[in-house]
């Protein structure tokens, strides 16, 4: 009987220490909202199931992580991690490769357009 308060205290302190794992830890979602719109765009329902979105997010994070690790391995041979390492990894996948080239070309165009815009503004001020 005298043991029970001690053991109760010990068990309560133990449960407090482990208390953070008892209520379910909330998974930190990175891309949840955008993924819902994206999955709808690619063929899912207007409101995809939350467990499906969570699973897709996990798969995407794992995919990006593995891809980046491989790119780093390739980049380490030449020194830094470059965009070309990613392009090398997806070289076999033509739709992705062409899409990436398109994205990079558009970014270049936008950069040029913004630079021209800034230059024009400066000229106006002068």
């Amino acid at each position: 009987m005298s043991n029970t308060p001690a053991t109760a205290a010990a068990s309560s302190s133990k449960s407090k220490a482990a208390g953070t794992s008892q209520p379910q830890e909330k998974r930190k979602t990175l891309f949840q909202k955008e993924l819902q719109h994206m999955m709808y765009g690619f063929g899912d329902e207007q409101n995809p199931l939350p467990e499906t979105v969570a699973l897709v997010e996990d798969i995407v994070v794992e995919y990006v992580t593995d891809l980046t690790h491989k790119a780093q391995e390739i980049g380490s041979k030449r020194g830094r991690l470059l965009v070309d390492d990613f392009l090398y990894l997806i070289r076999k996948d033509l739709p992705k490769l062409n899409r990436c080239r398109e994205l990079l070309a558009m970014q270049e165009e936008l950069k040029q357009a913004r630079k021209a815009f800034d230059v024009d503004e400066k000229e106006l001020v002068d």
Partner: protein
Amino acid sequence: MKHSKDPFEAAIEEEQEESPPESPVGGGGGEGGGDGSEEGRTEIDQTQEEDERPVDVRRPAKKSKTSVAVAEARNKDDDEEEEEENMEVELTKYPTSADPAKMAKMQTILSQFTEDQMSRYESFRRSALQRPQMKKLLIGVTGSQKIGMPMIIVVCGIAKMFVGELVETARVVMAERKESGPIRPCHIRESYRRLKLEGKVPKRSVPRLFR
């Protein structure tokens, strides 16, 4: 909602007949990019059409939600939309980067879209993984403090296309199992397994230990 002759599918057939000689080649650059990505898109939309017919009954019930969701997407993505519109205008000035014949074909197809198709296409075009989040993830994975903007953009693009492959393969799996409705995790898992067999998922040389 009457698809008597299915003008959409007729336009697709026309496009597909002419596309094989212009199949995407690396040297084609921008035009190849236009071909590759647009062919992918038209295929996606075709499968959606077939899916939407049996599911048509549920669409009216969800229409109120769709308008709210699309409005939200519009408000959030207004900047992106403006960017896209400006980019499209610029692309017409440079015919080398966008084939005017292709664009005319896209215009004819888009003009014949139903509301559902249009909203789905809108979601497809405008959705994107957020760049700050991706930057956080990349910094965490590489361990370096600086990640260049082009790299973030490229990785976001690759990841979006990967999601597309996952969802499309999941729909194929559902069609094989003759199921309908929202995609469930079991379909995604089967789709992921198939993509692994095709070699589209990078394999880890060291097995993943602590998740």
